[in-house]
């Protein structure tokens, strides 16, 4: 019988932790959670099946969440975890970087599975946008993983009562101040709920040309599937993976990490004027031509 593995999820003010809880489920069904951020986030995480939430308290006014990274790292290290998991987002990686600096562990990306093999934690990992995969084990310290952001669990979706939220002392770095508070935070756009996504790349020469593509994204019947636009670089960093029915790659070259992010799309359409662009190898339908003429033509054809 394998000994229980101590896992810890670190949360940077973002309640979308389903992917973090799921990836460790096979080795620890009740991970510990260390949360930096608002009380509402700590309480949401307490409902996701974790065994306890260590909460760094309500963030001081004007303090970016990254300022809590050193305090979070000390707290995580004090629990002596064997596996630490955080979201591969801007703020998530700040926390993970601090954990890595304290423990000396590499921060591993592209991890798709975690298993136990004779009390050894074995990770399945994709490299270079998925062109190669490998099995890896970490020794001499905890495994620290950056995993694509998950979704927010519906309240009451976990079995049993919410975990205890324990406030802990956590002092942020002070040499910074947010100088203007935006009126109310709204949830980040969740591309994963979109049936159609339009990706735009450097083929678009200037910001003004976005209206051209916006017309495509907003045209029927695409818009009825709640379609969204996203920049090429956004889809492909931070393990951001989407699986829409239809993905348009407009003026996108087909960089490896980007194509890894969209490879689960049901159908991929590319528009590019370079016959040798690698996106054309990775699409179902590729139109080779000038996007400034092709995109309006597609908008018109959709109306027919």
């Amino acid at each position, binding site marked *: 019988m394998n000994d229980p593995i101590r896992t810890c999820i670190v949360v940077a003010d973002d309640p979308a932790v389903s992917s973090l809880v799921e990836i460790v489920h096979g080795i620890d069904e009740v991970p510990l959670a260390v949360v930096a951020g608002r009380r509402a986030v700590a309480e949401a995480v307490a409902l996701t099946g974790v065994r306890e939430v260590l909460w760094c308290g309500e963030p001081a006014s004007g303090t970016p969440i990254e300022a809590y990274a050193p305090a979070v790292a000390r707290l995580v290290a004090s629990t002596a975890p064997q596996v630490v998991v955080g979201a591969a987002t801007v703020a998530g990686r700040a926390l993970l970087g601090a954990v890595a600096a304290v423990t*000396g562990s*590499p921060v591993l990306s592209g991890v798709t599975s975690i298993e136990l093999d004779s009390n050894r934690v074995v990770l399945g990992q994709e490299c270079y946008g998925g062109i190669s995969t*490998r099995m890896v084990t970490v020794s001499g310290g905890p495994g620290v993983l950056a995993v694509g952001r998950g979704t927010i669990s519906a309240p009451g979706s976990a079995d049993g009562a919410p975990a205890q939220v324990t406030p802990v002392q956590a002092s942020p770095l002070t040499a910074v101040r947010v100088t203007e508070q935006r009126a109310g935070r709204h949830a980040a756009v969740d591309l994963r709920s979109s049936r159609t996504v339009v990706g735009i790349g450097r083929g678009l020469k200037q910001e003004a040309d976005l209206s051209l593509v916006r017309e495509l994204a907003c045209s029927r019947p695409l818009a009825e599937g709640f379609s969204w636009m996203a920049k090429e670089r956004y889809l492909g960093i931070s393990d951001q993976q989407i699986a829409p029915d239809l993905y348009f790659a407009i003026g996108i070259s087909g960089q490896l990490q980007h194509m890894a992010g969209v490879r689960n799309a049901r159908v991929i359409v590319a528009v590019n004027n370079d016959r040798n662009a690698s996106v054309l190898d990775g699409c179902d339908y590729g139109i080779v031509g000038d996007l400034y003429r092709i995109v309006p033509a597609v908008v018109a054809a959709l109306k027919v």
Partner: protein
Amino acid sequence: MKIVVTYKWASNPQDAEVRPDGTVDFSRARGAVSEYDPVAFELARKLVDSVGGEVIGLCAGTASIDTSLARKAALSRGLDRLVLAADQALAGADSTRLAAVLAAVVRAIGDVDLVIAGESSMDLAEGQVALTLAAQLGWLGLAAVAGVTADDGVSVERELATGRQPLSLTGPAVLAAASDAVTPRIPGMKEILAAARKPVRVLALDALDLAAGPVSATVLSTSRPASGNRQQVLIDGADPDAAAADLVTALRKVGVL
């Protein structure tokens, strides 16, 4: 202001070959300044041009970062001087190790006000080193930086999913620039020629005060997954209306419209 710009000398994975056993061969891929790093160089240069000071380039890696070509590629991008931590022992070094080396050099340079880095590297695309570096230095680390100015103290503007976030800094920090923060200038002949005259200092690892890390990831096995199975139907776009009609017909047939 004393600003250090950290950059990576890396290859494009699309130029690499995946062997049948899943190992990746980069030997025929050419190295270059990583795709998004010039944005960091540009932000640093603009900042120092406005308030005075110096821009110091910094790279950690194997001997490949220290060739004449590699030095020139960095020095022609608005640097005043260059420091390289070049050591074969850094082959395959992970992000935490690289961050530790970079931190040791930043400390050795001394009195650094800001470290600016690119968004992520073109081979690994993680965006991790800059943030781990901040932690190794005991400094604040902020990614997604869209702009930075130094009027009365350092002001940073970030572009987050929730909107723009303006901040003011009163101490040193590591900033990772968003890849579209600014359009970097392309080095001209003047910059490339001037690069040859700029100072370069090369440090070996044993010159730095660094313990070897105790944690390592060991690869147990590798494999090459089956490649994608896309249709790859190419439509000639010379007649946009005909191409669009063909596309829409096909998409309706497949049932995604």
